[in-house]
């Protein structure tokens, strides 16, 4: 899989927000590749820059934010600096996006069919009837019962899970090469989340779509993604295959994240916490942004760590990566 050229290649991307209070480096030197049929997890807490990374790929960063430098290559085509008109032809057709809150993504005053048909007709010269038929099929595909009737409904007549299915159906309409999913199951309850994850995995596998799954929930990534990038304060601090990263994290932050997930075999033991709080994006510590919360921080961490490869297929940004032998779980 890694041999064929990637569908999407993000290289040293910087997206900054120029606010009155100062410059926020939301995405600070982020690089990763996604291949066809691959699911890449982008994990991090709120404000780590994972969503902004997604919007940067879509070309949907609004002022005061802007992609400052770096490159986003989609099937060889450079998207950074691409004219809006050309970008619009890709958006929704070759690259689609699913948003976090299904209660907010669909326009409340437009019927589902309107919102689906306009997506089709924005990119293809097809008739209203043909578009309607495709919309109906797409709804059926994501498991919405009696799609014919549901097409005529308004968003408020659907539950949260159903709305997210509609959003996914809209994203799949043009069989895109890449889908950016920004925490699409966070707002849903766990059973619906499991159903949606299952459906998405199935659909992506069928169509060999590349998928970037943005989430703060490592346990979702564990069951879904092939590879994972852990983000902290705008940087990717660790990247590798999901199984490897979860089994043997090399970055202290990843270890902290994994340790704070409840697990069955640690019943009754208090959950580990990462000490301190995420730093203000306006006043990040110099050097490694995690050093103020890191149990292993040393003098060298005051300088910005470069990307190193402590073991094959694993990248990290840490001066003092955890040794392989060290147990993943503290205590």
């Amino acid at each position, binding site marked *: 899989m890694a041999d064929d050229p990637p569908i999407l290649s993000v290289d040293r991307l910087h997206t900054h927000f120029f606010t009155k209070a100062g410059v926020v480096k939301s995405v600070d030197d982020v690089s990763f590749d996604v291949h066809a049929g691959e699911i890449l997890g982008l994990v991090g807490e709120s404000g780590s820059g994972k969503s902004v990374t997604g919007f940067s790929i879509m070309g949907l960063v609004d002022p005061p934010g802007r992609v400052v430098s770096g490159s986003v290559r989609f099937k060889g085509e450079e998207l950074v600096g691409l004219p809006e008109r050309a970008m619009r032809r890709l958006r929704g057709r070759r690259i689609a996006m699913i948003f976090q809150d299904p209660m907010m993504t669909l326009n409340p*005053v437009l019927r589902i069919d309107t919102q689906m048909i306009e997506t089709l007709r924005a990119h293809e010269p097809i008739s209203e009837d043909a578009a309607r038929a495709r919309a109906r099929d797409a709804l059926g595909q994501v498991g919405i019962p009696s799609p014919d009737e549901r097409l005529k409904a308004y968003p408020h007549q659907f539950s949260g899970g159903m709305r997210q299915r509609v959003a996914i159906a809209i994203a799949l309409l043009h069989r895109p090469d890449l889908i950016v999913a920004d925490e699409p199951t966070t707002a849903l309850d766990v059973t619906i989340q499991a159903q949606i994850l299952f459906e998405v995995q199935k659909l992506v596998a069928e169509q060999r779509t590349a998928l970037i799954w943005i989430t703060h929930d490592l346990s979702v990534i564990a069951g879904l993604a092939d590879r994972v990038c852990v983000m902290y304060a705008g940087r990717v601090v660790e990247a590798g295959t999901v199984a490897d990263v979860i089994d043997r994290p090399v970055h202290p932050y990843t270890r902290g994240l994994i340790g704070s997930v409840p697990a069955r075999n640690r019943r009754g033991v208090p959950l580990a916490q990462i000490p301190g709080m995420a730093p203000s994006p306006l006043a990040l510590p110099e050097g490694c942004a995690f050093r103020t919360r890191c149990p292993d921080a040393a003098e060298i961490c005051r300088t910005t760590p470069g990307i190193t490869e402590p073991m094959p297929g694993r990248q990290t940004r840490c001066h003092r990566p955890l040794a392989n032998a060290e147990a993943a779980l503290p205590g």
Partner: protein
Amino acid sequence: MADRLLPMTVFIIRRLLQSVLVLAIMTVIVFAGVYAIGNPIDILISPDATQAERERAIADLGLDQPWYVQYWVFLGNLLQGDLGRSFVFNEPAIQLLLQRMPATLELAAAAMLISLVIGIPLGMWAGLRPHGIAGKTIMSGSILGFSLPNFWQGMMLIMIFAVILGWLPSGGRGELGSFMGIESSLFSLDGWSHLILPATNLALFKTSLVIRLTRASIQETINLDYVKFARAKGLSPRRVIFVHVLKNIMIPLVTIIGLELGSVIAFAVVTETVFAWPGMGKLIIDSIFVLDRPVIVAYLIIIVMMFITINLVVDILYSILDPRVRLADIKA
């Protein structure tokens, strides 16, 4: 649609019943209020009249009775569709008002039209480009529209366009055109030339209101997820703004426009006075001066009915614009 018709009928009937109650309460208040202000007979009868003449006039108008008896008589007449005769003109009050209503309605309609046609596009521009020079100019201009006194704006308009430039007449209604049996100054060129200044005057405040409301709604809506999702679908900016954004901001706009339409009709008084526009507003001011109670009461009944109708239409429009609103849920 059929499943929405029944609740709509129920809703309208309930609303109408409540309106009757509102009207009844309103008439009592106005009746007692005008009674308390003074005796119209002091104004109507010349000071030289003899005591006998005076007594006879009072008895003729029924003013010798206590006010609740007069109210009872009024109510009885009202149920027969009689709103009383004007003390001054000795004509049925309703007839006086209906004669002048078209003038006020066309003035109000023209003013509303101007404020929407100018206000919505300017508000959208200011909302979409808040940091541009044009956007800032529009917003500063709207502050002027808000804060300059209406009568002063009217006099300035007359001074500039009628006196200095001499382009437009300074007052009056002008020639009426006729279209499909309806007579209105909207159908003649001369009528328009008379209408344009008072309508602009009446529209200035509303335009500012529409601009600010549109801008605020645009800015609130433009950052919502569904707008971003619409962009992520690859829709053209035109479709995003004119379908996804505009349809949502119509909801607050329709509310305000509805309420304002009522107030434009009810409070065209100042503009009608400044421009000598022969509408209901001018009539009511004159009637208040001479305590012509039947005209005052009839005017207020008409205005209240107008407000009730407009509110009803607004609520029905809501349910059409916003599928989440069901008429059954609106507190009537």
